[in-house]
């Protein structure tokens, strides 16, 4: 069994490699390791996705030079954006982003980062947010939850002010007239753990971070912030069903350094399209409840514009 699987894998890799060679005649090929900057510290959701992408590229032998992961999570990703802006070799520097790609330049204007100068590479998918409570709270519907929060002294945890989940919580506060105490943690995993340990009462988390506890029945999803009901949680209503025109996703996208040559951009766009279409990535999106949202480079640039506008509004509501 193993033997056949492995032989098949090698065969597939060989064909993929051959087709790569054929398609890239005289075009750009990296001639040194590719600096694969990650906008978050080691271990978080973004880091896991980056390392997964790297593994797929490695497994299928898709690149002539390796992708070298480089965690630069400092200052909510400001460090990564600066690193890309000042990259000495623009054709060998790419970045895995999340929504701090939009919020950090807005919150720290003195950085002088204009994300529209960055080179779009690939939108690998979007990660929806879900509202969770502990099963011992006895809450099973969003309406019950609203009643509970309105009693006061309600404590929620998240990954920090201005981070994705805090924007969603602020939206809830303002649109449902709630008052919530917010405790910042260093990462999504720590938030999920303290929800399971009942240190905090509710969280807004990506499903991938809470999956283990959900399967064990420790935590209960109440509301999804996606446009449509999520296949993994068919019984969980969306916020749109509750009459608010709102949805919120974390983007899992790859962008290139500003000023990357067209040939190099084409190379990375093709590379990540190949990765996107692999069985591995498709299976990963399904198991981690990511929503597919493939976009070509032009669409990505347009998407950035709308996201920047959305986040400007959300941050303004937060009083930032």
């Amino acid at each position, binding site marked *: 069994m193993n033997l056949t699987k492995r032989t098949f894998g090698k065969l597939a890799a060989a064909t993929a490699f051959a087709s790569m060679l054929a398609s890239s005649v005289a075009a750009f090929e990296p001639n040194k390791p590719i600096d694969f900057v990650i906008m978050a510290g*080691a271990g978080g959701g973004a880091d896991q996705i980056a390392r997964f992408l790297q593994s797929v590229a490695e497994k299928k032998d898709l690149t002539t030079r390796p992708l070298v992961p480089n965690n630069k999570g400092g200052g909510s990703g400001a460090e990564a954006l600066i690193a890309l802006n000042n990259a000495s070799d623009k054709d060998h520097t790419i970045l895995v982003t999340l929504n701090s790609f939009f919020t950090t330049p807005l919150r720290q204007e003195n950085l002088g980062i204009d994300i529209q100068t960055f080179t779009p590479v690939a939108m690998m998918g979007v990660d929806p947010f879900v509202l969770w409570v502990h099963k011992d709270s006895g809450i099973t519907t969003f309406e019950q939850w609203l009643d509970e929060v309105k009693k006061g002294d309600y404590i929620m945890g998240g990954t920090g002010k201005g981070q994705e989940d805090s924007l969603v919580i602020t939206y809830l506060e303002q649109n449902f007239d709630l008052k919530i105490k917010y*405790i910042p943690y260093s990462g999504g995993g720590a938030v999920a753990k*303290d929800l399971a340990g009942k240190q905090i009462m509710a969280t807004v988390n990506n499903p991938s971070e809470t*999956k283990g506890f959900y*399967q064990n029945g420790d935590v209960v999803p109440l509301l999804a912030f996606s446009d449509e009901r999520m296949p993994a949680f068919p019984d969980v209503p969306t916020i749109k069903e509750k009459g608010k025109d709102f949805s919120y996703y974390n983007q899992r996208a790859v962008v290139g350094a500003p000023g990357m040559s067209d040939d190099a951009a084409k190379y990375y766009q093709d590379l990540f399209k190949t990765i996107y279409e692999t069985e591995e990535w498709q299976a990963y999106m399904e198991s981690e409840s990511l929503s597919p949202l493939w976009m070509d480079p032009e669409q990505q640039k347009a998407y950035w514009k709308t996201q920047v506008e959305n986040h400007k509004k959300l941050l303004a509501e937060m009083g930032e």
Partner: protein
Amino acid sequence: MEILGLLTDGIFVSLQPINIMLILVGVTLGLFIGAMPGLGSVNGVAILLPITFLVPPGSAIIFLAAIYYGAMYGGAISSITLGIPGASTAVATTFDGRPLALKGRASLALVTAAVASFIGGSVANVLFTIFAPLLAKVALIFGPPEIFALMLLAFATFVGLGGDDLPKTILSICLGLVFAAVGFDEISGAPRLVFFDISGFLHGINFLVLAIGVYGIGEMIWTIESTRGEITTTEAKMSVKGIVSDAKEGMRRGWKGTAIGSFLGFFVGILPAAGATPGSLMSYGVSKMISKNPKEFGQGHPGGVAAPEAANNSASTGAMLPMLTLGIPGSPTTAILLGGMVIWGLTPGPRLFTDQPEFVWGLIGSFYISNVFALIVNLSFIPLFIWMLRMPFTVLAPLIFILSVVGGYAATQDMHDVWLMLIFGFGAYFLRKLDYPLAPAVLAIVLGPIAEPTLRQSLLLSSGDATIFLTRPIAGPITVIAIILILLPAFKMLKDRMKGPKSNPAG
């Protein structure tokens, strides 16, 4: 008894010839990765993860476990031979390992570290096997107030660590804590102490940058100056007989430390927010506190090597527990392993033990085997490290400097940190000359990033009421013990003063 069956299966799987080969290669590789300052098990695991897709998942896990164990053993090697802690978990090992090496007893230190690591790892494996699901519940009870109380306790065990000069010791602790606050304030979500708006400060001051600066550069320059360059680190010869007698001596004088480290390390290690570093630091502190001759600690006591080494090995195994049972990584290394498990199609979390017992017990089985092989491989490499120490100092010194620079860069991949490390090195050299104790600063920069956020998270939880640390059932007793320990030396000093006012005027 089903567990036992699954575990034996796991062990037998590890004993297949191909897997034994993988374990040998993995342990050896891990040993060198761990011994290299700036690189640690996190690098080994991250880099080799993609490679493991080429072999069946079962062998991949065994290979990774072997690297993990090898790196844990390797951390002590640079602490002892070079005097630079290669990883934060091996900081405490330098306190006594380095003095032993300078006395020509490097082999004693290395053998003690290896044996203590083995015992720590074994104790942890057994505890893990028996109590895993129960301990997972304990880990969940520890919220921010409990973790902060634990950090307070960690500091308390180190009260006696500083020099005789009280103001300088306190200054050193505070300096480390302030440096730990550089970069980003987790609670308000704002950049903090970004000196001169240099973007390199955004990721904070990495512990390794300070540790390598202090030990690899400052201490080295000081050694060259104070010995006028005529230093010989060791004359000891190595033989099988020597190893056996070293092991005997190490255990005779270090068994207490080993025992404390094995258990304390494991329990601190299973707490996701704490992990192996506080575990090894606390074990050192406690061993010193209960020792009959606490003055010998820091001068080259085998117990001071055994305690942190047993603890960091035990804690690193313990750190696997929250990852496997809760899906919460306790350290960057386990975080990456967690990613690996997701890639293999496994869901870490409370259901893993019931849904994927073969995987879990296979992994634990390979821990048992890797631990044995790590001990054997480590012991067989000790002569090589001793030989390195016998090189002329004018060859060894540039080598240490190069390792420092390379390690300082590899940790964060930023030249900014290499420059910072050089500045710390020069600063540490002058402070060292003036009797400023610097170990407290290094400890503080390790514990600070855990202590401050948990303190403030707790106060947010309690709406600013500080009694939360006393009223919670677990945090309360820990806080009280910590406070007593902190005040104890002060009482003692007061008592001494009342008794004999003419004894030396305290500083």
